[in-house]
């Protein structure tokens, strides 16, 4: 499981958790979300790229 950058294909998508205020993304705008959310949004978004997390440096004592 990872994150992806997506672009909005429809007029508006309101996102957020139930506790916070929704953020509205308009057609053409981009945002980063989880693979899971991108799958749920389906063709309302186009996946532009997979976000590759930078490797964490090894822990040193």
């Amino acid at each position, binding site marked *: 499981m990872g994150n992806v950058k997506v672009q909005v294909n429809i007029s508006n998508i309101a996102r*957020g*958790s139930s506790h916070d205020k929704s953020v509205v993304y308009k057609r053409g705008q981009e945002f980063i979300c989880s693979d899971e959310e991108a799958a749920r*949004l389906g063709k309302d978004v186009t996946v532009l790229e997979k976000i590759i997390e930078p490797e964490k440096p090894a822990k040193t004592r």
Partner: protein
Amino acid sequence: MTNAYTQYSKSVDSELVQPLQNVTVGRRLVYVTAPKGFGVTSVDWGKISDMSGGYVSYGFADGNEDMIDVALTNSKVPVYWKDYKVDRRLYNGWMINNTDMDVSAAQSAGYVATATEDAAIINGVTRNGTTYDINGLYQGAGNNYSTSADFGTYGNAMAAIAGAKQLMVDDGIPAYNIPLNLALSSEQYGELEKSTDNGFDEWPKVLRMLNGGSVYPVPSTVLGVGTGMLLPTPSVGRPYVDFFLTSNFRTEHGVDSKHPDTSDLYGRVYSAGILRIKHANAICKLSNI
């Protein structure tokens, strides 16, 4: 013999159409045109993809005739159908003695055909479950309220409806002033039905927010669990979306010509029509409830 089968089909139709219209959900959500005839196999229609802005000035000026962006679309009209068999002896009994007609086979097939039509209106026409040849209301919605709002928690249904209405109003759909219908997957319908807080039910508050519209449960096989949608009622929704009906529910019957006197009757129940989403922004899906 053809006349006898036609007569039988008409008798089945008269007993079948009303029960089927009672179970269909899709046709209650959208304006349904008068049947145009089964021979109509395609339809041309205009889809509003974007509205240009208006002007304000102290006089009129030429050169501002930019077109409202209407995409002309041609759609093939699909048929929703199911075949069944009627026991020959039951048919003969009806013909000779005018005994009660057994329409159970036709009715069962009719419910399946209705469910297929409902799925086409509510979700869309798909062969593989992922790619949609024709968008239904959910797949074709122009707005998506995807904010997490589990209907199992009191207040979330109201929050989702308020958020969806706001998205629609921002797109020029007068959602605060027109009656709206809320279609919910059966699980979310059940959650809303029992949602209460200190004796205050959420249901009447939700109804008030719908400005005279209603809440409809949709089987989760048609509208996935955790989803729903808000859209104008058929009384005001015709400019935004309609169901172009070419044939209302009908049946036809015939026999195997090898055994014209003894073979069972082969029946078919069918309807035909296509959903036309003219202004997608008038539909807001709720995808995370």
